[in-house]
C-alpha cells in the first residue's frame, strides 16, 4: 500500500517535471506557438474545446474497441480452426502471413470505399491492424499444451471439443491476454489512420482539421487527450489481465 503510494507520487512528480521542462524550453528559446505551443496554451485550447475533444476521443476509442473486440472474437475462432484442422491451417496461415506482411495502411482507402466515411471503415481498419497477433498467439496457446495432458484426455476417450474446452482453451488464455495487450494500441492506431484518410468525426479527424487551420495548440491538445485515454485503456486491460492470470504460474510473452 505504502509502496503504491510512493510509486504514484514518483510518477506524478515525473510528469510534472516533464511539463515544467516543456514550459521552460518554450520560454527559454522563444519557440513559436505554431511549432510548439506552451503547456498553458495547450491546456487552454483543451479546456475551450473540451466537449468536442472528449466526444471525438470517445468516437475514436469506440471505433478502436469495436474493431479490437471483433478481432479478439474472430481471431480466437480462427485460431481454433487452424489448430483443429490441417486443411484450415494449410489454407489460412499463408493467407494471414501474406495479409500481415502487406503495409496494412494501404487498405484504408479500400475500407472507405466499402464501408463509407462513417464509423465502420475505422472499425475495419482497427480490426485489420490488431487481428494478426491475436490469431498467431491464440493458435500458439492452443497448440502448446503438455502432450501428456492430451494423452490423459485421450485415455479418458474425451472428444476434441472436451479437450479444447477443458485443456487447450484455458491453456491459451495467458497467450490471448498477452496478445490483447499488443493488439489494443494497434487498434487505436488503426482507427486514427482510418480517420486520417477520410472521416467526418473522431480525434484523428479533429487533428487533421486543426492542422489545416494551423491551430497547433488544438493539435497538441487532441494528441495529448488521445494519449491519456489510450494509456488508461491499456492500464485497464493490464489490470483485467492480472486478475485473470492470478491462477497461472507463469506469464507469457506474446509475439507481435
Amino acid at each position: 500500500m505504502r509502496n503504491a503510494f510512493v510509486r504514484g507520487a514518483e510518477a506524478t512528480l515525473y510528469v510534472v517535471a516533464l511539463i515544467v521542462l516543456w514550459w521552460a524550453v518554450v520560454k527559454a528559446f522563444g519557440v513559436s506557438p505554431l511549432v510548439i505551443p506552451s503547456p498553458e496554451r495547450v491546456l487552454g485550447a483543451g479546456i475551450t474545446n473540451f466537449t468536442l475533444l472528449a466526444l471525438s476521443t470517445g468516437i475514436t476509442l469506440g471505433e478502436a474497441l469495436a474493431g479490437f473486440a471483433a478481432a479478439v472474437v474472430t481471431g480466437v475462432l480462427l485460431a481454433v480452426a487452424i489448430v483443429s484442422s490441417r486443411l484450415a491451417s494449410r489454407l489460412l496461415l499463408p493467407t494471414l502471413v501474406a495479409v500481415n506482411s502487406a503495409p496494412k495502411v494501404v487498405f484504408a482507402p479500400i475500407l472507405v470505399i466499402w464501408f463509407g466515411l462513417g464509423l465502420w471503415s475505422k472499425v475495419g481498419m482497427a480490426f485489420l491492424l490488431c487481428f494478426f497477433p491475436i490469431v498467431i498467439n491464440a493458435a500458439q496457446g492452443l497448440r502448446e499444451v503438455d502432450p501428456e495432458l492430451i494423452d490423459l484426455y485421450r485415455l479418458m476417450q474425451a472428444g476434441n471439443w472436451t479437450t479444447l474446452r477443458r485443456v487447450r482453451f484455458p491453456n491459451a488464455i495467458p497467450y490471448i491476454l498477452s496478445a490483447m495487450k499488443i493488439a489494443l494500441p494497434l487498434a487505436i492506431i488503426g482507427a486514427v489512420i482510418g480517420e486520417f484518410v477520410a472521416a467526418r468525426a473522431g480525434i484523428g479527424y479533429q487533428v487533421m482539421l486543426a492542422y489545416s487551420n494551423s491551430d497547433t495548440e488544438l493539435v497538441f491538445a487532441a494528441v495529448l487527450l488521445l494519449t491519456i485515454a489510450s494509456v488508461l485503456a491499456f492500464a485497464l486491460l493490464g489490470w483485467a489481465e492480472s486478475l485473470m492470470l492470478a491462477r497461472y504460474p507463469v506469464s507469457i510473452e506474446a509475439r507481435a
Partner: protein
Amino acid sequence: MFDQGPIRTVLRLDGVAKRFGEGPGATTAVIDFSLDVTEGEFVCILGASGCGKSTLLKLIANLLLPSAGTIERAEHVARRGGIGMVFQRPVLLPWRTVLGNVLAPAEVLDLPGWPQDTARELIARVGLAGFEQALPHQLSGGMQQRVSIARALLSDPKLLLMDEPFGALDALTREQMNADLLRVWSETGKTVLLVTHSIEEAAFLSDRIVVMAPRPGRIAEIVVNPLPRPRELAVMASPEFAALEGRLRERVAHA
C-alpha cells in the same frame, strides 16, 4: 473374454511388438512381449532407459496400437475410465486447484455417486487434506504427484498404470511415496502396473517384477517377489530384500 474363475486376469499381452517408422530407419521399441496380469496384482516393469517401458504402458493404455500381437483387456478395464494413469511428471492443469484437478476426470466421464465427495476422500487418502484449494505451483513436486495419483483414482479404475511416477523426486520423498502408494494400493485393491528403473523400488512394491532387456525392449525374466506382505519401509533392511535386490541387479546387468 476371460475365464471368470477365482483368479481373474484383467490384462493379457500376447506377442506384442511396436515399431516406430518404416523402412531402414524404423526402430523396434518393444518385441515379443507376453504377460498376464491378475486382478489386484502389483507388477513392476524394471529396466534401464530406452528399453521401451513407456511405450509398453502407452500400448496397454490404448494410446498406441501394437504393430504385432494382441492386447486383451477385461471389460471393466476397457470401459471409459477403466484405466488410470500417472506419469513421471504430475501433468496437472496449472490453472486449477488441487480439488479441481482431482475432479477433472468427472467432467469427461460419467461417474456415479458424488465425485466431489470421492475427490475429497482421495485427496485425504494421498495425504493432502487441507490443500484442496491450493494451486499446483504452490505445492512441492511430491505433493503434485500425490494430486495426480488422486486424480488417476477418481474414476475408480480397475487398472492403474504408473510411468516412473516417483522418478523425478528426491530419494527420501520417493521412499515415503512408495510406502504411501503401497498403503493406498492395499486399501483400494487396484491392479497396478508400475514402470521403474529403480531396483529397490521394484523389490519393495511388487508382487512380480518383469525385468526388461533393451534394444529392442523385451522380457529378460519375470521374477516373483518372495517378500511377505504387508510391507513397511523396514523390510528394505532385511537380508531377504538384499537377496532379491542382488538377484534383480544381476538380471538387469545381463539383460
